[in-house]
């Protein structure tokens, strides 16, 4: 229990630090946002009025406090370019990116575990050599290029989906998942290769340890030793990796959403960056980082569940 409380506390501190970083880094940008918002229409009076309206004439710490309080109440402020509440603009996009990421992680686990276990058990077979080389190649293909190849193959040659015809999950959930499967595949492919490689490497390293040899010498079946001892211990680094991967997958979706024109967080982040829509950029970066921090916390707890001795 003490461990859990300590962990939650440090996570809270991290979240606080992240929010401060996001807020203050945007306030050091040279230039008055009110001026850039008014553009050519800027007159001294108008600038003063808007500066006051946007609260830019108040001291920074005060604005930061207000910003955090508002966020805790679910209010991220107003977008500069859409002139709407950031929350109402983002709510659907968050869902889209989450669904995409969850499909990608399910795909990764569902394909990588059986394959990794197979290559670990048959580490000398011909098929293993082929798989290992293929793995090395797939790891070198960036997700946006594999995304283009997937579009070409499944969208153009096999006509399994229409590129660009994304359906919102609010309209039709199944068709949405059917479309998101392909971008998720592009995100998952390199991750699958990495997990397979890691699982194989750690399992092989584990299999040469003394306790495994002892287990064999006591007459245990190869299968039983592998699943009960080797695999169990090989899982720990794999779980760490999967946790880091989850954060990576969310960030990776920014690029892949662009390839498949999926209107998620990544796409609106990019348009907000080029439109210098700072409240939006702030909100999205903060959301994504909160996500990263929380998934890191989840990994630490998962470790604990796996091995009670570990205290991270």
């Amino acid at each position, binding site marked *: 229990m003490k461990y859990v409380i300590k962990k939650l506390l440090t996570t809270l501190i991290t979240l606080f630090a992240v929010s401060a970083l996001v807020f203050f880094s945007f306030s050091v940008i040279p230039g008055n946002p009110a001026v850039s918002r008014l553009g050519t229409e800027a007159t001294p009076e108008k600038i003063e009025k808007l500066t006051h309206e946007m609260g830019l004439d108040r001291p920074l710490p005060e604005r930061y406090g207000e910003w955090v309080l508002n966020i805790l109440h679910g209010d991220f402020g107003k977008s500069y370019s859409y002139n709407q509440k950031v929350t109402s603009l983002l709510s659907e996009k968050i869902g889209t990116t989450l669904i995409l990421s969850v499909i990608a992680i399910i795909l990764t686990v569902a394909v990588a575990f059986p394959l990794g276990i197979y290559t670990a058990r048959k580490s000398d077979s011909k098929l293993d050599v082929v798989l290992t080389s293929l793995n090395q190649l797939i790891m070198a293909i*960036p997700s946006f290029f594999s995304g283009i190849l997937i579009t070409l193959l499944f969208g153009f040659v096999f006509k399994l989906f229409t590129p660009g015809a994304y359906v919102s999950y609010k309209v039709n959930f199944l068709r949405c998942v059917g479309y998101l499967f392909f971008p998720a595949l592009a995100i998952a492919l390199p991750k699958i290769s990495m997990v397979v490689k890691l699982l194989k490497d750690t399992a092989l390293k584990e299999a040469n340890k003394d306790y495994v040899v002892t287990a064999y010498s006591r007459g245990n079946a190869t299968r039983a030793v592998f699943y009960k001892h080797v695999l169990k211990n090989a899982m720990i680094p794999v779980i760490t990796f999967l946790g880091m991967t989850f954060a990576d997958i969310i960030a990776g979706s920014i690029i892949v959403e662009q390839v498949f024109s999926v209107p998620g967080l990544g796409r609106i982040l990019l348009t907000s960056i080029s439109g210098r829509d700072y409240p939006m950029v702030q909100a999205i970066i903060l959301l994504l980082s909160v996500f990263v921090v929380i998934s890191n916390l989840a990994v630490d707890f998962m470790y604990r569940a796996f091995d009670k001795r570990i205290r991270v």
Partner: protein
Amino acid sequence: MTGNNKVKLIIGLVLTGIVFLMLLFGIFYTPYDPMAMDASVSKSISLKHIMGCDQFGRDVFSRVLVGVKETMIVAGAVVLIGVFFGTVVGTLTGYFGGWIDEILMRLNDAVLAFPSVLLALLVIGLYGGGRNTLILALGIAFIPSFARIIRSEVLKIKNLDYIQSVRLFGAGHLRIIVVHILPNLKTVMLSSILIGFNNAVLAEAGMSYLGMGVAPPNPSLGRMLSEAQAYIFTNPMTAVFPGITIVIMILGFSLLSAATEKG
């Protein structure tokens, strides 16, 4: 060196050899002006245009050559920033320990836990796109992983007998670090520089795919892919060649790194 590593080394050397050849051509000679448009030219692959032409009639091969140069400039600068500051941070924290170590490593871990794409986008969101911002953004994102590797090596080395004995001879901290510790990091540095190149090429290509890299009309491999995507069903090769070039670069560096890692 095992047989497996030898194969990796040879293939890796061949692939990076191709990349450096393309880099040299990109700097000194391209068959056509990579920016020259010619609407009359056929888009398909021919002896004159071995990778075909893009939608504006620009020679794809020439653009790929210059794109390789751009990517390598960014990747090289990013790795340089990462290695330099990573080594400084890594040796300081590893060698001295104490509160410097605590503070810098906490910071380091916080940055490390952050996906580099997100960090780079934050910096670009603040300062606008373009090559220099991209180098700065990715460079910062690359420091922590180098720092971590260097720190753990320094920790291993600093308590070895020979370091203790130089210390007894009265050598100062600076001399111990520069003369006695840093030279021993060569092997670790080599493989982490190679994997750094692998990651930097990937990150540069990704960012320029998103339109956050080198400004158009200058060719960059990532941007070529995103431009070609609109014509993917009529002229797929315009996307495939730059894509394959990126794969060759990444594969080459990762194979070399894997081969040098276990020595």
